[in-house]
C-alpha cells in the first residue's frame, strides 16, 4: 500500500478544481456511470439482498468510483487521485481484525463474512448530548455493566460551568478532556476498567481538542478507538489528515467514519450503496483505519431506517464482507424516541439488514440523536440482544422478518414516536429503573417479537 506521506502529498499535487466542478464534473456523472456499468439496481422492495453477484458488482463499482473520481481536499482544492492498482492493493491489505481493550476486556473485532454464524462484536452507546455530569456517569456505568458488551460509544458533555462550549474554543478542549475523564470513570465504576471506548472523541470535533483529550493522562489508550470523519461526499480536509497523521504516529486504532447522505450528491439507494462501500475502501487507503463506522443517513428525515437505506447499508456490508472484510460497525440513526416501540422495531429491521450481511452490532441512536439524555442502558442491552438474535439468521431468512418489522414503523417515519429521557426512567440515587410504563413497553415488545418468530433472548 502506498505510504501515508505519499497519501498526504496527493492532496498537494492533484488537479486543482473547485468543489462544484468536482461534484458536477466528476463525482455525480462518474457515480451515475459506474452504477450503469455494473448494473446496480434496487428493486424498491427488497431490504436484505441475497444476490451475491450484485454485492460483488457494488464492490467493483466502488473501486471504479474511487479510481475515476478521486477524493477532494477542501483545504487545497485539489483532487487526490489513486490508481486502480493502488486501490486494489489497499483492498488486499485492509485489516480483517482490530484489537481493542485492556486486560481481561481485550478482544478482537473481526470483519465478518455474509451469513456468518459467529458471534458479532457488540458495540453500544452513542455520542448523544448529555446535560448533567451525574447522568453522564450513570449512563456510562450502566452501559459498561452490560456483560455481553465488547465496546462503548460514550455520550458527549459539552458544557463547562453551565455553559455550552463553542467549537474551536478553549472550553471545547476542556469539555473534551472532561468527557474522557468522566467516561473512563463511569467505565471504572462498572468494574470493567479495560473496556474500550471506540468513539473517541465525541466531544472533540476539531483536531486540537481531539489530540489534546487523547493524552493518556486523561484515560484514553491506543487500544481504544478514535473516529476520523470523511466530510460528505468524498471530501477530506487538513484537519482530518492531521488526525490521521497523529493517531497513526501513536499506533492507535482509527475508526474511519462516513455518513453518505441519501438524497444528497449520491442520489438514491444505488448511489448510497456504492458510495458507502467506497468509503470503506477510502478508510483503509487514506485513513489507515482499524475499523469503520458506516453511518448512511437520510438527508431529509435524518434517520437511517427507511427501506432504501436499509437495503443500501446492508449492501455495503455485503460488498465489504465478500471482498475486503474490513471490520465494520453500522450506526443506526433511528427516528423513534428512547424506549418507544418504534425505536425497537427500527432496531430489529436494521440488525436483520446488517448482521447477516457481515456487519457487527451497534445499538440504536434514538430520536435522530437530537434528544439529550436519551441513552438508556436498558434499551442498549435489549438492542445488543436483538443483534445477537439477528446473527442466527441467514440473509434469506432475515428478509421476511425485516419486511415485517419495517411495516410496523413505516407510517411513522415522518413523525416518529417520542420516547423517554434518562431522568424519566431511572432513579438518580439508586440507579434503578422506576418507570413501569417504560419497563412494560420493552417487555411487550419482546413478546411481540417472539410472536413474530424473532426470539430475543435476555442476556
Amino acid at each position: 500500500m502506498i505510504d501515508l506521506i505519499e497519501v498526504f502529498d496527493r492532496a498537494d499535487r492533484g488537479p486543482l478544481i473547485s468543489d462544484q466542478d468536482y461534484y458536477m464534473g466528476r463525482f455525480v456523472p462518474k457515480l451515475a456511470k459506474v452504477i450503469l456499468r455494473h448494473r446496480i439496481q434496487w428493486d424498491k422492495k427488497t431490504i436484505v439482498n441475497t444476490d451475491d453477484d450484485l454485492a460483488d458488482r457494488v464492490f467493483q463499482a466502488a473501486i471504479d468510483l474511487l479510481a475515476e473520481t478521486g477524493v477532494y481536499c477542501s483545504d487545497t482544492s485539489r483532487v487526490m487521485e489513486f490508481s486502480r492498482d493502488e486501490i486494489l492493493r489497499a483492498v488486499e491489505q485492509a485489516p480483517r481484525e482490530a484489537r481493542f481493550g485492556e486486560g481481561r476486556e481485550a478482544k478482537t473485532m473481526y470483519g465478518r463474512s455474509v451469513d456468518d454464524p459467529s458471534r458479532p462484536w457488540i458495540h453500544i452507546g452513542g455520542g448523544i448530548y448529555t446535560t448533567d455530569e451525574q447522568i453522564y456517569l450513570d449512563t456510562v456505568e450502566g452501559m459498561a455493566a452490560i456483560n455481553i458488551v465488547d465496546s462503548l460509544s460514550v455520550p458527549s458533555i459539552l458544557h463547562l460551568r453551565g455553559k455550552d462550549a463553542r467549537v474551536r474554543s478553549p472550553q471545547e478542549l476542556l469539555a473534551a478532556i472532561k468527557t474522557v475523564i468522566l467516561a473512563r470513570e463511569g467505565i471504572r465504576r462498572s468494574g470493567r476498567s479495560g473496556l474500550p471506548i471506540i468513539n473517541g472523541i465525541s466531544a472533540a470535533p476539531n483536531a486540537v481538542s481531539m489530540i489534546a483529550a487523547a493524552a493518556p493522562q486523561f484515560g484514553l489508550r491506543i487500544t481504544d478507538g478514535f473516529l476520523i470523519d470523511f466530510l460528505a461526499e468524498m471530501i477530506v480536509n487538513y484537519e482530518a489528515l492531521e488526525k490521521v497523521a497523529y493517531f497513526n504516529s501513536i499506533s492507535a486504532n482509527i475508526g474511519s467514519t462516513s455518513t453518505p447522505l441519501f438524497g444528497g450528491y449520491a442520489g438514491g439507494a444505488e448511489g448510497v450503496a456504492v458510495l458507502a462501500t467506497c468509503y470503506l475502501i477510502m478508510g483503509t487507503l487514506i485513513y489507515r483505519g482499524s475499523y469503520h463506522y458506516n453511518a448512511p443517513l437520510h438527508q431529509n428525515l435524518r434517520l437511517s431506517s427507511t427501506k432504501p437505506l436499509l437495503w443500501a447499508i446492508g449492501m455495503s456490508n455485503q460488498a465489504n464482507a465478500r471482498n475486503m472484510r474490513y471490520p465494520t460497525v453500522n450506526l443506526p440513526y433511528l427516528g423513534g424516541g428512547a424506549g418507544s416501540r418504534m425505536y425497537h422495531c427500527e432496531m430489529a429491521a436494521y440488525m436483520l439488514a446488517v448482521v447477516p450481511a457481515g456487519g457487527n452490532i451497534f445499538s440504536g441512536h434514538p430520536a435522530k440523536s437530537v434528544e439529550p439524555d436519551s441513552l438508556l442502558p436498558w434499551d442498549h442491552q435489549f438492542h445488543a440482544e436483538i443483534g445477537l438474535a439477528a446473527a442466527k439468521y441467514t440473509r434469506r431468512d432475515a428478509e421476511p422478518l425485516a419486511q415485517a418489522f419495517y411495516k410496523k414503523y413505516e407510517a411513522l417515519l415522518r413523525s416518529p414516536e417520542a420516547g423517554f429521557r434518562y431522568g424519566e426512567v431511572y432513579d438518580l440515587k439508586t440507579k434503578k429503573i422506576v418507570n413501569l410504563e417504560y419497563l412494560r413497553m420493552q417487555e411487550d415488545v419482546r413478546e411481540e417479537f417472539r410472536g413474530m418468530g424473532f426470539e430475543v433472548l435476555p442476556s
Partner: protein
Amino acid sequence: MEKEEQLDKLRDAMKELERENVVAYTQQALDAGLDPLEIIDLGLLPGLTAVGKQFENEEIFLPELMISAMLFQNAMAILQPRIKAMGVAARKKGVVVMGTVKGDMHYIGKNIVRLLLEISGFEVHDLGVDVDPLKFIRTAREVKADIIALSALLTTTLVGQRDVIEALQGQGVREQFKVMVGGGAVTKRWAEQIGADGYAETAYAAVEMAESFVGSGVKPERRGI
C-alpha cells in the same frame, strides 16, 4: 404556435431537465414576442416547481436539483437583457442571505435549501460555510434581504446561530430580518430559546417558511417553532 403551447413546452422541458430544449424553447418564446416575465412565471417557474415536488417525493435527488438550477440560470441569461431593456425588474419572491455558521464546515443540507429556494423564485446569497456572524448581517443589509437563514450541523456550532441573532439585536436591526434556523443539531426547543423566527426540519419546510415570511408583503407572525 400558440402562446400556451410554447409555455407548456418550456415547462415540460424544465420538468424533464432537457438541457438543450430549455434554452431553445426560451429563445423561441422570446422570438415569438412573449413577455419575458410571463416566460418566467408561466413557463420556467412551474417547471421548477414540478422539479421541487419530485425532489420532495424522492423521485429525484440533489444532482438533478443542481441541474435544474443551472438550466434556470441558462434561461435567465437569455431573458435578462430583454427584461433590462424593458426597464423592469424580474419578480422575485424575496431575498435570502444564508450560510453555515462559524466553526461548521457542513454544507450539503444548506446547498439543498439554497437550490430549493432558488427554484422557488427567491434571490439567494449563499455565504458558504464557517461564516462570521457579522458577515451575515453586513450582507443582509447590503442586499436588502428579507430573511437570514442559518445552518448548523453540530451541537458545538449551534451557538453560532445565537451569535447572529445577538449581533442583530446589538446593532438594533433584529426587526428588519426574519431569521430561520435549521441543520442536524437544531431542534424546535433550541430555535425558541435563541429567539429565531422559524425552525425548519426539512429543506422543503424551509422553503414553505420562507414563502410565508415574505407572503403578501406583510411581515408574518412568528411561526414554525
